[in-house]
């Protein structure tokens, strides 16, 4: 389980996170939704210790992050984390070199799944294919948790469908996934848990299926209620 406990953060005088708390379970897809610039990316960065927080605590399987944690949790930011002059094969080799949890077999399978060519240079890829390589680098790791920042933004519809397919496939297995998005409609049926964020705060945290069952509302219905209030 990933536990985010009452974290706060300021950029200069601006408070971007005002005591954010939520949990994300293994085997579930948790979706952080906020309309715009509400610190979703900052939360993911904070989980990975890529930005300091001012107070609060983040636990991964009950522990604060340490170097070994990076074999258990991986982060796919919205831009690719490899050098532009690398070929896809170089990037895969780099991962294989540094991570014990890198699964070369799954990486090869993902190449096929996304219809990517190993010999292509990252700088030559289309936006959609860059996003797919970025995703591949995270998904091919045998980790418990995967964080994804806006995996669907700014790419074409076919790439989007392909990426959505990943979520229903064995490629996700029983891992815990946290994704951020501001556009829910593509993935409404795919997610387990929803965390609605606005203005640096969690407005509501709920299970998507439970809200449909108990209240007969769609995720978007709940969003409309919460954000309009």
């Amino acid at each position, binding site marked *: 389980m990933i536990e985010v406990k009452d974290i706060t953060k300021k950029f200069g005088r601006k408070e971007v996170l005002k005591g954010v708390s939520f949990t994300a379970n293994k085997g579930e897809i948790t979706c952080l939704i906020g309309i715009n610039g509400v610190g979703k990316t900052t939360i993911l960065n904070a989980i*990975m210790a*890529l*930005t*300091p927080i001012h107070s609060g605590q983040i636990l991964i399987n009950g522990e604060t992050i340490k*170097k070994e944690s990076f074999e258990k949790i991986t982060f796919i930011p919205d831009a*690719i*984390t490899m*050098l532009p002059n690398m070929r896809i094969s170089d990037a895969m080799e*780099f991962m294989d070199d*540094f991570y014990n949890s890198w699964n070369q077999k799954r990486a090869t399978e993902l190449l096929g799944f996304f219809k990517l060519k190993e010999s292509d240079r990252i700088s030559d890829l289309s936006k959609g294919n860059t996003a797919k390589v970025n995703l591949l680098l995270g998904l091919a790791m045998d980790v418990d948790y995967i964080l994804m920042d806006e995996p669907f933004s700014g790419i074409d519809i076919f790439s989007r469908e392909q990426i959505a397919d990943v979520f229903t496939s064995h490629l996700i297995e029983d891992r815990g996934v946290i994704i951020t998005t501001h556009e829910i409609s593509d993935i409404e049926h795919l997610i387990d848990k929803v965390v609605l964020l606005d203005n640096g705060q969690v407005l509501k945290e709920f299970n998507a299926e439970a809200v449909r069952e108990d209240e007969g509302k769609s995720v978007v219905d709940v969003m409309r209620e919460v954000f309009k209030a």
Partner: protein
Amino acid sequence: MKRYLKLVNFEFNRIAKVYFVLLAIVLVSQFAGVIVESKSYLKEANHMIYEELMPKAEFFLQYGPMSLERVFASIWFFGPIALCIGVVAFYIFLIWYRDWFGKNTFIYRLLMLPTARLNVFLAKLTTILLMTLGFVAFQLILFPIESTILKWMVPKDFRMDMGTLEVIGSFRELQMIIPTSFIEFILYYGAGFAVVTLLFTAIMFERCYRIKGILLGIGYGFLAVVLFFTPILIQEFLQNHYLYPSELLLLEIVMGLIVTCCSIWTSSYLLKKKIRV
């Protein structure tokens, strides 16, 4: 350790192309220098002796014999060395900033490696060190070759042959780059290493706190320099030459080590707790 070595290998490969181009420039320019300077010396000699009918002995008295010294005084020799120094100095900063800027976000990857983040820092530091020492070693290899070329170019009675050590000894500027004693070598390059570590730490401050970090970095640098020179300052202003120079040197070495360790520790802390992507 394994990941540190892999990182060093990776970091070096990132600059390898530029590095080998620089080595090629040094080689070509210095060899060309030997040839051009030799030719112009011989031309001058020919002109003076055969056209102006100056006696050979008189010519030697006025112009001196041809030697590598003459080449080293030229832009052919110092130009590329200055270029290399400039590139290394520039790369001290670029080696960090290239990971933050541009389309890629490679710093994410570096900070998410399952290894102590200090290893990323040390790998970059090692790369700078390797580049520098590589240049020095390359220059040492070039000396005897340049000496040989000179022998081909200039007849025996017009030249003065010098050994590598002699060559270096004849130039103060060259001694700065390639000290002739091992102790000096360690001291000079140790000091250089300490300075690079200090600069890296200042960069870490800037990367953690941005504009405020520039001030913190400068502040840290100032403090480190003061700390380093404390023994000398005390000696000068208070104790009136209480210590022997050798004791003072030893104390300075200790201070240098302390300052460097402080820088590495501070950087490690910043990378672990305060860094921002």
